[in-house]
């Protein structure tokens, strides 16, 4: 079975859902490689693509609440219902008075059943375009954009996690062969490179303090020496030269990091950020930010 057949099967499923639930106006399925499968011959216009991209970023951030399962937007003129089905997302626009519990039941039965059938027919080719370097994994959550630089180390981390994810989704028995393959592949990968993978980067919430001046570099922030030292010993690196800063508004930036030079500001849980950078991040003095160290690539 090839990609086309896979997409056709899902398209037909969406058409059937629309037949059963007339309140569904438009329906898409978002595959885990960001491919959009439309329910019928409807065009996926650029605004929809943009919306889907933002949905993807939401799915990444939703890790905080255990991953995005459902999203319901209730507007004056209609609703949008997004539901996670075996690692993919079905996106449906509904009329105002749609019977949501009924739709949930229908989609909760039809889509997983079809996916299960497709997988059991040909487990190795179920993903339309399997991601490079990744073993064939039938379904999984959106892949979070790597916010941290240690690409190689993350790859190690990811490969270790994959077998767990497969267990979670109750794959049919026929999937066990690729699972074994995955295990051997992951073993091979982990053996090759880094001896000590970084499992979780430490992070800290710090209070923003602005500073400025003629000789101030906009790309360098100041933190407590103690925090920098703690991170470098935790991560087993010589020193932390860069940090990732995430703001309350969801903005993020990478800056060079230095120890606080002025004694007055030491050991107060502050991060001193140059005014220009604060402006760029729309930060005010006293706001909280999350700061993560960047592991230097050596």
């Amino acid at each position: 079975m090839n990609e086309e057949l896979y997409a056709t099967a899902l398209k037909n499923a969406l058409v059937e859902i629309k037949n059963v639930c007339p309140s569904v106006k438009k329906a898409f399925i978002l595959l885990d490689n960001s491919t959009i499968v439309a329910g019928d011959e409807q065009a996926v216009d650029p605004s929809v693509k943009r919306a889907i991209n933002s949905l993807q970023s939401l799915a990444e951030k939703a890790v905080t609440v255990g991953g995005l399962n459902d999203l319901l937007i209730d507007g004056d003129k209609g609703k949008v219902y997004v539901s996670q089905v075996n690692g993919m997302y079905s996106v449906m626009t509904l009329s105002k008075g749609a019977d949501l519990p009924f739709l949930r039941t229908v989609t909760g039965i039809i889509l997983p059943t079809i996916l299960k059938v497709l997988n059991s027919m040909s487990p190795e080719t179920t993903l339309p375009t399997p991601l490079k370097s990744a073993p064939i994994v039938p379904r999984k959550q959106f892949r979070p954009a790597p916010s941290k630089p240690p690409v190689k180390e993350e790859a190690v981390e990811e490969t270790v996690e994959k077998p767990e994810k497969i267990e979670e989704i109750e794959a049919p028995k026929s999937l066990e062969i690729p699972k074994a393959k995955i295990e051997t592949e992951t073993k091979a990968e982990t053996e090759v490179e880094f001896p000590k993978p970084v499992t979780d980067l430490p992070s800290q919430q710090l209070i923003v303090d602005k500073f400025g001046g003629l000789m101030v570099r906009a790309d360098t922030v100041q933190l407590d020496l103690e925090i920098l030292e703690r991170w470098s010993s935790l991560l087993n690196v010589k020193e932390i030269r860069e940090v990732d800063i995430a703001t309350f508004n969801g903005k993020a930036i990478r800056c060079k990091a230095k120890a606080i030079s002025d004694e007055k500001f030491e050991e107060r849980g502050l991060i001193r950020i140059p005014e220009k950078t604060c402006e760029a991040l729309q930060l005010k003095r006293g706001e909280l930010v999350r700061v993560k160290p960047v592991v230097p690539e050596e």
Partner: protein
Amino acid sequence: MPIKKKVPQVETAEQIDWSPKAEVKEQITDLRTVLDKIKTRKGVIGYILRASTSAAVDIKDPSKIIDYAALSASALESTESLSEAFELGKLNNIVVEGRDLKILLLTIGEHRISVFMEKNMDHNSIYKELT
């Protein structure tokens, strides 16, 4: 005899009518009172109340504040673009459901509210209480 110059009268800060701002402040206080009451309910984890220039956050686990704030900002941004793409009109409420928690997001006037709660909570009752 020295000539007295007539200084043009400038409207001072005291003369400016501040009443709309006071109204906004009052609205925030009202919302906060309601939200504080909601937060006492079993299963409610906390809330974020944002206005254009201020924000109030009350989350039980302070270490999650930034994550929750980023998630709620991302949810609002995402729903805005979805609403634009699918022409949903004015948004009433948004519910983001994760495996562990769910979030009710809504906009009242210029205030954006995110209420974080456990999955089994009835978000409709909270929505009704807020509107």
